[in-house]
C-alpha cells in the first residue's frame, strides 16, 4: 500500500531534515508510529498525504507515485484516497459540525455530495457520539467532540489510507478505545490502511505493527 524509497525532505527554514531510506506498509495493516516530539512523525504523514513534497526519493500510495503527480492531481488524490485526522483539528469555525464533516465534498469535484453521503455522515456522527451536535457551530464543541468530528470528516469518503495524527489525544480513556475501535472497524470494513501517530502506549498493543521514531535517523525501521 505504502512504499517509500530514499526519501529526503527538509523544511525551507532548514531546521529539520527527514531521511527515510526504505519503508513500506501493506494494505489493511494498522500501524502505530511513536516517538518523541519533533522527531518527524507529522512530517512523514504530510509527505504521505502529498501536502509536502520531498526533495528526493519516491512515495507510492496504492501504486501511485504521489510525488510525481502535479499539485492539483495530488490534491484530488488526497481528498479521494486519504482520510487525514489532523492533530490540531483543522475545523472551520463558521461552519456547523455537519458542514465541517461534509466540507471535503463541497470543495472538490472529485467527490459527489448526495443524500447517501449525508446519511453516512449522520451515521458516523452517531457512532462517534456527536449526533446531537451536528447543527451546532464547532466552537461550541469540547476538544474531544472536535476530535470526533475530525475523525468523521476523515472517514466519510471511505479512504484507502487513513492518516491519524494523535487521533485520540484529546479523548478520555473510555472514548479513546471506542474511537480507536471505530477507526479499526473502518479499516476492516473498507479494506483500508491505518497509519496512526500516537503518544499513548496503552493503545499500542491493538496495532499490527509499531514504528518507533526514537532513533530513526540512525536506524529507521526497515521492512
Amino acid at each position, binding site marked *: 500500500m505504502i512504499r517509500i524509497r530514499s526519501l529526503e525532505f527538509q523544511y525551507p527554514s532548514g531546521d529539520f531534515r527527514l531521511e527515510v531510506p526504505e519503508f513500506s506498509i501493506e494494505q489493511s495493516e494498522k500501524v502505530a508510529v511513536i516517538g518523541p516530539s519533533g522527531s518527524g512523525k507529522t512530517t512523514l504523514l504530510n509527505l504521505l498525504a502529498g501536502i509536502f513534497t520531498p526533495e528526493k526519493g519516491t512515495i507510492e500510495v496504492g501504486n501511485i507515485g504521489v510525488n510525481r503527480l502535479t499539485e492539483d492531481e495530488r490534491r484530488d*488524490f488526497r481528498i*479521494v484516497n486519504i482520510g487525514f485526522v489532523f492533530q490540531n483539528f*483543522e475545523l472551520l469555525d*463558521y*461552519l456547523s459540525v455537519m458542514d465541517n464533516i461534509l466540507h*471535503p465534498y*463541497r*470543495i*472538490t469535484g472529485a467527490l459527489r455530495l448526495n443524500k447517501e453521503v449525508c446519511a453516512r455522515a449522520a451515521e458516523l456522527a452517531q457512532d462517534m457520539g456527536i449526533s446531537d451536535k451536528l447543527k451546532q*457551530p464547532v466552537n461550541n464543541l469540547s476538544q474531544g467532540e472536535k476530535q470526533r468530528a475530525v475523525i468523521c470528516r476523515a472517514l466519510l469518503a471511505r479512504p484507502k489510507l487513513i492518516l491519524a495524527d494523535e487521533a485520540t489525544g484529546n479523548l478520555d480513556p473510555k472514548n479513546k478505545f471506542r474511537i480507536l475501535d471505530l477507526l479499526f472497524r473502518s479499516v476492516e470494513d473498507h479494506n483500508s490502511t491505518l497509519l496512526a501517530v500516537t503518544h499513548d502506549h496503552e493503545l499500542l498493543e491493538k496495532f499490527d505493527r509499531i514504528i518507533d521514531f526514537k532513533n530513526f535517523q540512525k536506524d529507521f525501521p526497515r521492512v
Partner: protein
Amino acid sequence: MFDSLYIAWKYVRFNKFKSVILVTCITLIALLPLSLELLLNESEKQLMARAKSTPLLVGAKGSALDLAMNSLYFDDEIPELVAMDEVNYVNETQLAMPIPLYVRFKARGYPVVGTTLDYFDYRNLELASGNSLAILGECVLGATVADQLGLKPGDSLISSPENLFDLAGVYPLKMKVAGILQKSNTADDRAVFVDLKTAWIIQGLGHGHKDLKKNKDPTVILKRTDTNVAANAKLDHYNEITRNNLDSFHFHGNLGTYPITGLIAVPLDTKSGTLLRGRYLTRKTSNQILKPTEVIEGLLENIFKIKNLIDSVILFVGSATVLAIILVFALSLRIRQNEILTIFKLGCRRMTIARLMAAEICIIVLTSGFFCGGLVALIDYFADDLVRTLVIR
C-alpha cells in the same frame, strides 16, 4: 458553484459585522449617484413641466429666479412686490390675460396663494369636493394640504402670523374651507388658495369692524366729522369673515397700488406674447417680464453643473471605497491563511479557493445590489414628493 456559494454564504453570515459594513459601503456608494441622477431627472421633468405650462411671468425687477420659483412653486423666497396696476396694464394691452398672484403668507406651513378664479381655469384645477371661492375669507385647499391637515369643506384654517414677535404685524385670519381640489401632482396640491382680496385682508390692508358711526365710546373714537370717523387701536377688528360681518370689510386707498408678488400673463397667441415682451423692453418700468422656461433652464444648467461636481466627488469617494474594500478582502485573506491552509490540506484546488472568494464577493455585491435596487425603487416611488420637498420647495 452552488457549494462555493453555500460555503461563502456561511462565512458571510458568520462574520455579520464585517459583511454588514461592506454591504452598507457598497450600497451607499452605488446609491448616491443613482439616486442623484433619478432625483435630478425628476426635478428637470417637474420644473420644466410647470415652466412650460406658464408662458410669461411679470414681476418686479430683481431676481428672475425668485420670481419664477415664487410664482410657479409658491417658494418661500418672496420677490420684490409689484402694484396691482401692473395687472391692469397687461389687461389694457389686450395682448394677454393677466392672472395676479400674491404668494406671501402661510397657513400651518402651507403657502397662501392669493389669486383670481382665472387661475383655476388656466391650470385646469378641478374641485374634488365643496365649492369654489365665492366670498371673502374663504379658501380652497390643494389635495395634499387637505390630506395632511385633515381638513374638509366647512372646516376652518387659520393663517399664520409672519412674525410672532411683531405685535403690529399681520394678525391671523380664520378662513373657511370652501372646497378641496383634485390632486394635480403639481405645486398646487400643496397650496391654500384664497381670493386676492382675502390675501390683502390677511396682510391688514383690508379689515372689518363694528360701525364707528354707532360707536359712542370716547376711549375708542379719536375724531368725528360729518364724513369721517377716526378710531384708535383699541377698536376691535374681526379676525374671521362671516356672512354677518362681511359687509363691514372694506379697503382703504387705491386698490391699484395694492401689492402682488407677480402675475401670469397668458398671451392670446405667440405673436401677442412677443409683442408684450417687446413692450416691457421698451417701456420705462421697474418691472420685468420673463419666460419661465428660460429661467428654469438656467437653474437646471446650474444644478447639472453642481451634479457634475458631485459626480466627480462621488467618483473619488467611490474609488477610495473600492480600494478600501479591496484592502478589506486582502487583509481578510491574510487573516484567513490558516483556514485556506486547512482546505488546501483537505485537498482543495487553488481554483476552488478563488471560486470561494469570488462567491463571497458575489454575495456581498449582490446583497448590496439588492438593497441598492430596493432603495432606488423606493426613491423612484417617492421621487415626486422628494423633489418637491428637497429641490423645489
